């Protein structure tokens, strides 16, 4: 125990000195936080965005990536609108960052609250989250084709789909499936992704479009079955999750003929009016976070698409995603009156 402590101390000393050495020339002019950084999560505790931000908080403090502490704050009111308005009102404050999910687009469109992502400064895309069509393991439907054929053959409102929130990503995908099958799903909204998964395990609904991280534990325990992933290519992770399957064994929904691909942004924004120096600090910070083993492990467990973008490339991507969402929400009739 004693030697162990000493060696840990020694290692961290070495790490610290090396880190200092590397930082020294760069930090002469660069901006750095001078007080605790507030990390806003526009969603409740326990959800995908919350898990990711708490992991980042842990990674940052474990590897000592910023000198100031990072504090996670949940502002989930009004489908995240509360958090976005809060960052919008903090214009020019470089000690606040926000992690986003699709509600960056869907919340203002569906509720009409006065907010647009252009009120914020884009920092970086951390990853993209996949969506998977899940059924209960006891369901007779083994493939997406099977299941969707059954829906097609059934009547309107025969099959129940559970999802997170109303007029958000889960319901957008459900509406796309409605269109494909020509039959209407009953969409039952719940507060969080974890609840949704458990409702499916309990057999109260027929299917869900949970993100991988929300349902993986139940899949491993043999309670849920993934049918297809809403992407144009398969998830690359080859490591076995269950006895027989890995993430990459899940076919895409395209293979079943459903032309739906939908990925959700997990990205970082700052309040409007941030300087280039400040943005650069956070971009570098998240680059370092991405290099840590904890982050890599988390990405693999949650089967995330590890795209990383920053700067103009990122802003362009967000702009394009906004246009896509406008179209999707309009088609589904979800726009605020």
């Amino acid at each position, binding site marked *: 125990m004693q030697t162990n402590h000493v060696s*840990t101390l020694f290692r961290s000393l070495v790490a610290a000195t090396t880190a200092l050495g590397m930082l020294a020339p760069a930090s002469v002019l660069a901006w750095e936080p001078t007080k605790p950084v507030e990390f806003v999560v526009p969603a409740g*505790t*326990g959800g995908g965005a*919350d*898990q990711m931000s*708490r*992991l980042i*908080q*842990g990674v940052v*403090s*474990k590897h000592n990536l910023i000198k100031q*502490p990072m*504090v*996670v*704050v949940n*502002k*989930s*009111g*009004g*489908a995240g*609108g*509360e958090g976005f*308005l*809060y960052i919008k009102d903090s214009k020019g404050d470089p000690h606040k960052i926000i992690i986003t999910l699709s509600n960056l687009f869907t919340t203002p469109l*569906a*509720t*009409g*609250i*006065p907010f647009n992502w252009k009120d914020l400064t884009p920092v970086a895309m951390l990853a993209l989250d996949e969506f998977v069509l899940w059924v209960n393991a006891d369901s007779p439907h083994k493939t997406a084709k099977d299941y969707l054929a059954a829906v097609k053959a059934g009547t309107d*409102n025969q099959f*129940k789909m559970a999802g997170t*929130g*109303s*007029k*958000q990503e889960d319901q957008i995908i459900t509406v796309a499936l409605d269109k494909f099958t020509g039959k209407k799903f*009953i*969409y*039952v*909204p*719940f*507060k969080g992704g*974890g*609840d949704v998964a*458990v*409702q499916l*395990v*309990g*057999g*109260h*609904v027929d299917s869900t479009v949970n993100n991988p991280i929300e349902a*993986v*534990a*139940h899949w*491993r*325990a043999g*309670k849920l079955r993934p049918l297809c992933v809403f992407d144009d290519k398969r998830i690359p992770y080859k490591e076995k999750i269950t006895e027989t399957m890995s993430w990459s064994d899940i076919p895409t929904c395209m293979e079943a003929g459903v032309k739906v691909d939908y990925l959700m942004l997990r990205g970082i924004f700052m309040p409007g009016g941030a300087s280039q120096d400040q943005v650069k600090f956070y971009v570098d910070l998240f680059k370092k976070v991405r290099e840590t083993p*904890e982050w890599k*492990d*988390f990405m693999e467990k949650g089967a995330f698409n590890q795209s990383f973008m920053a700067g103009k490339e990122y802003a362009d991507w967000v702009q394009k995603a906004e246009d896509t969402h406008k179209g999707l929400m309009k088609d589904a009739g*979800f726009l605020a009156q």
Partner: protein
Amino acid sequence: MEEFSNLMQGFSVALTYQNLLFMLVGILLGVLIGVLPGLGGANGVAILLPLTFTMSPTSAIIMLSCIYWGALFGGAITSILFNIPGEPWSVATTFDGHPMAKAGRAGEALTAAFTSSFVGALIAVIMITFLAPLVAKFSLKFGPPEFFAVQLLTFCSFVGLGKGHPAKTIAAMMLGFALASVGLDTVTGTLRMTFGTGELLRGFNFLIAVIGLFGIGEILLTMEEGLAFKGVHARINPSVVWQTWKQLPKYWMTALRGTLIGCWMGITPGGATPASFMSYGIAKRFSKNGEKFGTGEIEGVIAPETAAHAAGTSALLPMLTLGIPGSPTAAVLLGGLLIWGLQPGPLLFVEQKDFVWGLIASMYLGNIVGLIIVLTTVPWWAAILRVPFSIIAPIIIVICAIGAYTVNNAMLDVVLMLVFGIVGYLFKKLDYPLAPLVLALVLGDMAESSFRQSMLMSRGEVSIFWSNGLVGSICGLAMLMLFWPVVTKLLARLRRGNNDLDDARPVE
């Protein structure tokens, strides 16, 4: 017995000097968090997180879960002393706990609260130890109709308790429901009663309402009575713990009932707050002294405290086996698990045996350590009441303001707290009952969304609420509770027919 040997294995993991030390630290921090309404478990984890990276996951989770036990214990302290519920589940504790403190029996109330918390938690842990897989399976049976039935039962077992005028009881309850509906409607995604303001998006938080209604309202009332807490001149007696313990065993039925309600609500997961209300309501219905509830009955402290702790403890079970946190603090523990690369879910019990059983063993140890710590502090807490009111009052207001602010980091909430303070003062003086308002506020939102989820699933058929045995029997029980006063009257009439002598005896 396999569970038993697993548990012993768990004790051997948890019982090291280091882990005991971590428990101590965790409990003390937790009590602090429970006492100050501004601090939440999330912050506790924030400061301990860097520390925990040098420990094994088991030691780390032991420390973090001890924060949770500590917070559960601590919530009762301010409820009893100052009528300020530090945590939502201690609201029901104020109903009788604070009147006891005002009557100079703070030490007694605190001892009863801590001891019943311990009993509730202990029985819940025993249940987790031996029935975990069964219980997890049972909790999966709960879909939206069952959730609604549970909320209905909570409401029915509590409603009709007050002595106020029916018009006022109804108005208070409706006010609670109306406040609960402000904000985004989960089911349709439309904004209700926000009137275009960003500030109302998040709706009215339960904690802000109770801090204002109870805490600030109480200070205004006390002020009117002339700058003094009536309990000021109570003797501080170190042996109060023993004296209280002597009278506790005769309330074993209340404690057992509270524990069962709590366990059930914790795993379904209805949560600790509704559990405490339901337990209080049912205890009042069945107790011999039911009439005196609200004036400082020790049973009125035992009932909600056993239920809240049994619920808080058993809420960890769905978190570990299903990945659904039963409470916000459990959610933070969940975050902790993820950082150590532990995936909560059905396989955790199989793949991480050492960890799971170490945690369960620490639940036993943590609660025992916690009980000893908080009981030794009883005389000190009671002594706070001797500080002059003109010093303690502004400090309470400051703590309330911080508590209200930290709920959403919003100044508007502090203003709202003051408004609720005036409402609390006026309502109390005009005999509007506050409990139905608070209960409606905490349950309204949940009950409405589970009702409407059920309606979506059944295409508007109300019959879904008696469509299977489980939901049907809970709904039936709710109706029975609602009409209990009528039922007791009928029973009394029957008994009178049988035995005139018995009835002639004056009621105590």
